[in-house]
């Protein structure tokens, strides 16, 4: 079992998805829901076995599997996890469970298809994090787009067609260049093995060109300024579950790509272009935060806030220090919990009032006190309050940035003010105050199912904030190895 555990975590949800799909029409929706829950829970539990069997003292790939897939091009079905991908896989399996529970009653049409799409996506996303073969990675990477495309396109809002096409084209254009990069690397090294690419020597010109090829794929996914505008649109149109997965996991693919490909394969170009990436990251932190401040749509506001928070990830990575990269990784995981939770919160409100407009609300605390308490926690976490997960990553990145250049730290630190400003100002307008209108007066507080979802996420946010030690412990060996790779020269 241990030898195939990783494969099981990838394929079990996909098999589950097929089973769920086979329940067919909405008359058997209850069965579809139960099956989805069973499969997502089972996958989550199995991923915990991965975690418990994981050796934190080595940077080597663990749970590796390698089978020849296409012999002509020596493409392998090659899987493995290290300290960088391990936490992301757990995050994926955990959030899928949440999304399944969250969609339990909300989705009444095409329930089986909705649930199946998320299960498909879960398998594919774990596949992305576990692939050690470039082509396999590419297949998972692109495959992942399809269920998301479907989710937004079918269960999305009124302007969903524009949003899906924008989302699809943006990401596809980026990833095609990545494919070109893979093919180039294959031609030079005769292998698609990512680990072998890590040690394959490349000239500066090659590295530069490859860097931009990879960059176009990853920067779009992160998303970095100025290729971020697909995200607010996609979020606004996506159903709640779609937004959760999009923000919590899909955005992490870009950051993961930088760590798996750009830094170790192209260390010299990465260092050469670090300033470029850092400047874009700082723009994301400052510029996007200001843009978030003036949003009137809650989902857009949180989407912009996500972009600003992702700025910390790329900033941390391109400082090339253990602290920076660990800070960035922690920020990725924490953002998974917090943004997921915030999108769920908006979903809770949207299900009741069918509006995402801040102006439609006011005084929600009067009718939904329990919900208001949860949202307070997540808002504070989003503002980076110590004791919540949101603080840990930002703190480490700011510490790391200070060592490189004080002004990086100063600019990044403005998030303390802006992050609090846009989050709490929204909170004030939506939650506090007198009951704004009759619709708000008629609101009912969150159900047990909603409490369960938000409660699980709240627990994670607090645990990670109060005791981030185990989260960081998993990463140490791999990140230290990565830093030695990224700071060595290939020339």
């Amino acid at each position, binding site marked *: 079992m241990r030898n195939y555990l990783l494969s099981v975590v990838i394929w079990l949800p996909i098999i589950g998805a097929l089973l769920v799909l086979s329940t067919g029409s909405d008359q058997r929706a209850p069965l579809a829901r139960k099956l989805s829950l069973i499969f997502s829970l089972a996958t989550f539990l199995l991923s915990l076995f991965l975690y418990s069997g994981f050796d934190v003292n080595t940077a080597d790939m663990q749970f590796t599997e390698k089978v020849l897939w296409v012999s002509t091009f020596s493409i392998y079905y090659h899987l493995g996890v290290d300290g960088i991908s391990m936490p992301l896989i757990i995050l994926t399996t955990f959030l899928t469970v949440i999304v399944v529970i969250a969609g339990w009653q909300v989705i009444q049409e095409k329930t089986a298809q909705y649930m199946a799409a998320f299960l498909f996506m879960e398998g594919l996303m774990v596949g992305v994090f576990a692939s050690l073969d470039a082509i396999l990675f590419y297949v998972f990477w692109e495959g992942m787009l399809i269920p998301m495309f479907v989710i937004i396109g079918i269960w999305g809002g009124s302007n969903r067609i524009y949003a899906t096409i924008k989302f699809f084209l943006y990401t596809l254009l980026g990833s095609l260049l990545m494919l070109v990069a893979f093919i180039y690397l294959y031609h030079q090294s005769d292998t698609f093995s990512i680990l072998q690419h890590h040690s394959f020597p490349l000239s500066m010109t090659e590295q530069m060109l490859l860097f931009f090829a990879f960059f176009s794929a990853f920067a779009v996914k992160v998303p970095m300024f100025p290729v971020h505008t697909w995200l607010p649109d996609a979020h606004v149109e996506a159903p709640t579950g779609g937004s959760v997965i999009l923000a919590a996991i899909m955005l992490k693919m870009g950051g993961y790509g930088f760590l798996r490909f750009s830094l170790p394969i192209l260390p010299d170009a990465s260092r050469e272009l670090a300033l470029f990436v850092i400047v874009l990251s700082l723009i994301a932190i400052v510029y996007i935060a200001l843009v978030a401040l003036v949003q009137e749509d809650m989902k857009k506001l949180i989407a912009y806030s996500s972009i600003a928070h992702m700025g910390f990830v790329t900033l941390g990575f391109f400082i090339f220090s253990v*602290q920076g990269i660990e800070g960035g990784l922690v920020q990725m995981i924490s953002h998974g919990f917090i943004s997921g939770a915030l999108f769920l919160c908006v979903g809770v409100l949207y299900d009741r009032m069918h509006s995402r407009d801040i102006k439609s609300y006011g*005084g929600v605390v009067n009718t939904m006190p329990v919900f208001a308490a949860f949202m307070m926690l997540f808002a504070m976490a989003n503002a980076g309050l110590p004791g919540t997960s949101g603080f840990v990553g930002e703190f480490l990145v700011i510490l790391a940035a200070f060592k490189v250049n004080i002004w990086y730290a100063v600019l990044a*630190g403005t998030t*303390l003010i802006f992050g609090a400003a846009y989050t709490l*100002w929204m909170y004030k307008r939506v939650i506090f105050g007198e009951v704004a209108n009759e619709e708000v007066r008629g609101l009912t507080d969150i159900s047990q199912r909603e409490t369960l979802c938000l409660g699980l996420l709240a627990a994670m946010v607090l645990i990670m904030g109060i005791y981030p030690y185990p989260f960081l412990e998993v990463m140490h060996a791999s990140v230290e190895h990565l830093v030695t790779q990224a700071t060595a020269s290939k020339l």
Partner: protein
Amino acid sequence: MTAMEYVYIFIPLSCLAGAVVVGLGGSYVGRVGAHRITITGVALSFALSLIVFIDVMQGNRFDGAVYTWAVSDGIPFEIGFLIDELTALMIVVVTFVSFMVHVYTIGYMHDDPGYQRFFSYIALFTFAMLMLVMSNNFLQLFFGWEAVGLVSYLLIGFWYKRESAIAANLKAFLVNRVGDLGFLLGIAAVLYVFGSLDYLTVFTAAPQMAETTVPNTETLWMTVISLLLFVGAMGKSAQVPLHVWLPDSMEGPTPISALIHAATMVTAGIFMVARMSPLFELSDTALNVVMVIGAVTAFFMALIGLVQNDIKRVIAYSTLSQLGYMTVALGASAYAAGIFHLGTHAFFKALLFLGAGSVIIALHHQQDMRAMGGLRQKMPITWITMIIGTLALIGFPGFAGFFSKDAIIEAVHFSNQPAASFAYVALTAGTFVTAFYSWRLIFLTFHGKPRMDKEAFEHVHETPWVMTLPLVLLAVPSIMIGWIYVEPVLFGGFFADSIKVLPEHDTLARIGAQQDAAHSIAWQMVVHGLTALPVILTLLGSVAAYLVYILRPDLPGMLARRLSVAYNILMNKYGFDEFNEFVFARGARRIGSFFWRAGDVRVIDGLMVNGTARMVGWFSSVIRHIQTGYVYQYAFVMIIGLFAFMTWFLSS
């Protein structure tokens, strides 16, 4: 773990346990349960704090980690306690005032639907404040720092239906965040320079780092670190120009104005600078900045107190001013005096706030002093205790505030720093203003003719014992504490190693050198004080207030008209709020709006994204014309192409 270690850990945890149980317990806990559980927690905390205080007095100190929060790049970040004289003093003050406020709240919040929530918040606050002062490292200090800010935010906005309350709490949080940015960068600088966030490691290494400068500049790292940390202190301890949130914080219920916005949280900045004395001592620049900011705050905020009509706001401006006094003490390297004033102020200012709260409750939430007057006979306990608080505040010889404030002014007098002369003038002049606004409050509230309708006045009566008992218990230290502690704390080396002062900065030692050994220092201070300028000005201020508000009640209105320019400046609080609103709040929204509409919507989406789509569309609409479907046209193009290709092939 030793027995004492259990004691240390239970001090904050018993408050946290109360907060969690009451906060999450819902109807299982209920109203009575809420105050019983939290008060038991904080009382236990207070008792244990006393044990720790006694233990520390016997020379036992502690420095150790509770757990490792995280490790990154080999640097451990820990949660741990440093128990020394400074900590011991702080935890006793914090838990005692908190205990009093808890009891008082039973009466004050009696009719409030948020009763249980309130108790949960103040218990949580006490926990956070204790973690802050007991910390042995910068990270946990920041944790406590932000956590008290969070609870302050929640409590200012406690009455969340009031627009003014939820505006005030957002403002408080954001202004504090400005300070926190400085603080966090200061912490980053400490880690960068010292490679550790542990207090003792940093403080021990500090003297060797005294001369190191920021690369490519001549600025001392110690100056950078101290100033950045001080920005944090300016936020939390409401120093100009980051003071704007404190008066607005009076939107919260009065018990928290006493506990958080007078006695404890706002003094966290003072505590922090005192704690960091080994760093601040190494930068004269920083000390002078601290002194100037403190002096400006002390004097100019006191002036605003003269014209306020809301009873709580008068006390709020008084708090700002007193925080300025403490800050000046830090700048003059008289850290012990600053902390001592922090302690005495905690007692008498909590007393004044709770007294004001007692009046407010008796008058059914009336806070405007113009609608008070003559309450003396109706509320004798409140009246007497508030007079005691006032005497302590204005520094009447013998009362608690006298010793601490006089020590600060004397210390500034003896300081050699360039900013000291300015600070001395500001603080001394401030004593007159302090006396004036303090008596104004007493006279307007308790004396003269009642300015409310007769029937309402008839129904006023003293508040219940749960509210008056804390007043009495706070009045006791407001009278006594100075006599007992001034000598050991200021001149007896009470703080030992917990505060470091360079010999050339040691202003308190210079004061101490002037005392003769035959009499107690407290007695000598009183005797000396009676003939010194601050006390004379205090008495003059008191007489002036009596003259204006008792003998000639028509004078204030006339003065306001005659000095309308000055009066308006003070009423508008020097225009800080308008400036911030216009430049920062609206400015940020405008820039954000511009970035969004011009950058995201027009350039990126309009020009680049949709522009590309339009380009493709336009291009294909042009190209489409070539696809006519006529075979002869295709054949013609083919021939031309073939011809061109062959020409190129043959010619090369």
